[in-house]
Structures are given as C-alpha cells and as structure tokens.
C-alpha cells in the first residue's frame, strides 16, 4: 500500500464523515418542530364542530322527548276517537225494531 492510497482512503472517509455530520446538523434535532397553521385551523374547526354536534344532539333529544310525549297523547286521542266511532257505528248498524199494532205490509216466514 502506498502513501497515495492511504491519502485517498483518508479523504474518502473524511468526506463521508463530513456529509454525515452535515446531514445531522441540517436535520436540526435540537429544534422544536414548527406547527403547520392549517393543522391548527383544522383542530379548531373540529373542536367547534364537536361543540355544535353536542348542541344539535341536545336539541334533537329534547325534540324527540317532546315528540314522544305528543305521540303518546295523539295515540290516546286516536284510540278514544276510534272507540267513539265504533260505538257510533255499532249504534248505526244495530237494527231498530219495535212491536206495533199495525197491519203488516209484508210478512216474514220460514224461507
């Protein structure tokens, strides 16, 4: 091995060490990462949406509860109305008959 060869190896190693050092320094491992402002906006928006969703859920729950109460009342109203209609229908369908002292217009007999 000649001195020239030694020098060439030394230069190559020095170059590798240099670039590794450069890359390590360029990565700035000591610096805190800078936050992307779009991410921050997105996070804020998400938080706002969550709050809105909670509000909407509350309103929906309230309305559903009110609807259920109204539905129950309406069902009771319909049932009572149906019962009344049935009574009326039964009364309307019921035959109307009485014993009279009149000459008959026609007769019923074994058919």
């Amino acid at each position, binding site marked *: 091995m000649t001195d020239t060869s030694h020098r060439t190896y030394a230069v190559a190693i020095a170059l590798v060490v240099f670039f590794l050092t450069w890359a390590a320094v360029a990565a700035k491992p000591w610096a805190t990462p800078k936050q992307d402002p779009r991410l921050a906006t997105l996070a804020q928006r998400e938080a706002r949406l969550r709050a809105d969703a909670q509000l909407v859920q509350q309103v929906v729950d309230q309305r559903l509860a009110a609807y259920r109460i109204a539905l129950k009342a309406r069902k009771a109203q319909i049932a009572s109305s149906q019962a009344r209609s049935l009574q009326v229908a039964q009364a309307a369908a019921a035959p109307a*008959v009485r014993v009279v002292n009149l000459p008959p217009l026609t007769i*019923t007999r074994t058919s």
Partner: protein
Amino acid sequence: MQRRAFTAMGTEVELLLDIEPGEIAERALDRAESEFERFEQLLSRFRADSELSRLNREGRLDDADPDLVHVVGLALAARERTGGRFDPTVHDAVVAAGYDRTFDEMPADRTGPAPSPAACGGSIRVDGRTIELGPGTRLDLGGIAKGYAVDRVAEVLGLAGPCLVNAGGDLAVRGGAWPVGVTSGLTLELSKGAIATSGRDRRRWRSAGAEMHHLIDPSTGSPAAGDLVSVTVVADSATDAEVLAKAAFLGAEVDVPHVLVTADGRTVLAGGLA
C-alpha cells in the same frame, strides 16, 4: 208505494219501494230483479250451470266470482261463530233427506228406503278467488245466499228511495218504517236492519213415512228435532239474521231481538223485544 213480486232463488220475492211511480222506480226495480237473477245463476244448487254447482261437481274453482267467494267466506265465518250449528256443508245431508230438487218439484210424500244421515263439517279452503272443497264435501248456500242477495239488492234499491226487500221471509229495509208480520197477531215495525225466519213449519215433506224438513242439524246430519217450530231473528243484515235464526233454531243463544214459536203454540219474544 211501488211493489213488484216475482220468483227467484226458489222463493217468492217482494220488492217495496216508497217513491212516486215513474222511470226511476221502474229502473230501480228492474235492476233489483236482475240482481236476484244474477245471484240465483251464481249460487243455486239446483241450477246445473251455476258456479256453486260447478264447485260442488269439481271440488275446486280457481276463478270464482267474487260474490261466490264472499258468500262462502261469510258461511265459513258463520260456521265458526255458531260453533258449527250453521254449516254450509249440509248439502249431502239435505239431499239424503230427500230435498234433491227444487221444492216445487218435490213430491209431498216420497217412497223408497228411509233416508240415512250424511256427514257434515267438511273442509273448505278459500284463497283469493280459489275455493277448494275437501273430499266429498259439497255446499248448500241456500239460506245464507238468500240473505246475502237480500242485503245486496236492498243496497241497490235503497239508492232510489226507502225500500223493503223480502225473499221468502228473509227481508231487509233501507229507510222508512215497515210493519212486518211475524205470526198472526204479532207485527214488528222495522226501521233499520233485517229479519229472517227459520223453522220447520214450511218446506216439509214425508220420506218413507217419516216427517222431514229442510233444516239439517249438522251434528246429526238429519233434519233437526226439537220443540221449536220457528225462530224469527232481527239483525243488522239479512245474512246475519239468517245465520242467527238457523243457529237459534238449533238451540244457540242469540243476543239479538228474536221471536220463538214453540210446538205447543206459544210465541216468546226475547232479546229486548217487548
């Protein structure tokens, strides 16, 4: 008062229409009469070409007339409701008793072997417009068909004005108040609904020396025995009245106004009649 009388469904039919004479009255009465003819053509067991006769012959109809389907459905419901006292499958029992042709064609006294009871209660299946009878089952829709026809014709005639439709004692009214004789001395004024009478005081004959009549007790397959001569029932439709009268004649309790005539000549008013 317009009146028309004719014969249909093996009995005398009387139509009373309380409007002025004229074309409307005539057309309404014509329509009512043709409806009776249509029902007879459909539901008579004495007409070989009726749909009912075809059903009885073939045991199945796939495209039955809606009215036949409806009457069979009503008869099935009536059998259920009366615990089998009303049964449309009495056809063979009625025929076995000797009522095998129209009553006008029957001899008053038949000779030959004594009639033997025939089984009733066969199966009937109705699915859409298909009617299927169980093996050996044949239908006699006589009474209920008459009641049904009376109800339908009363609807038609009632469009023209207050009316009464009477088919051999099964009658229905629409509007007005109609005095109807039940027995001598008892008249009921009917202003809504229908009346029907079932009994053994008519449609009687002798067969091999035995007294027979047309009301078959489905539990025995023979003409019903008992101490009642007739039962008259008031109900909201002639179909119902017919079914209930038959059931009451066979001993069922009915909760509608009714009149019982017993063999010892008593007339009993029940079900709120007084």
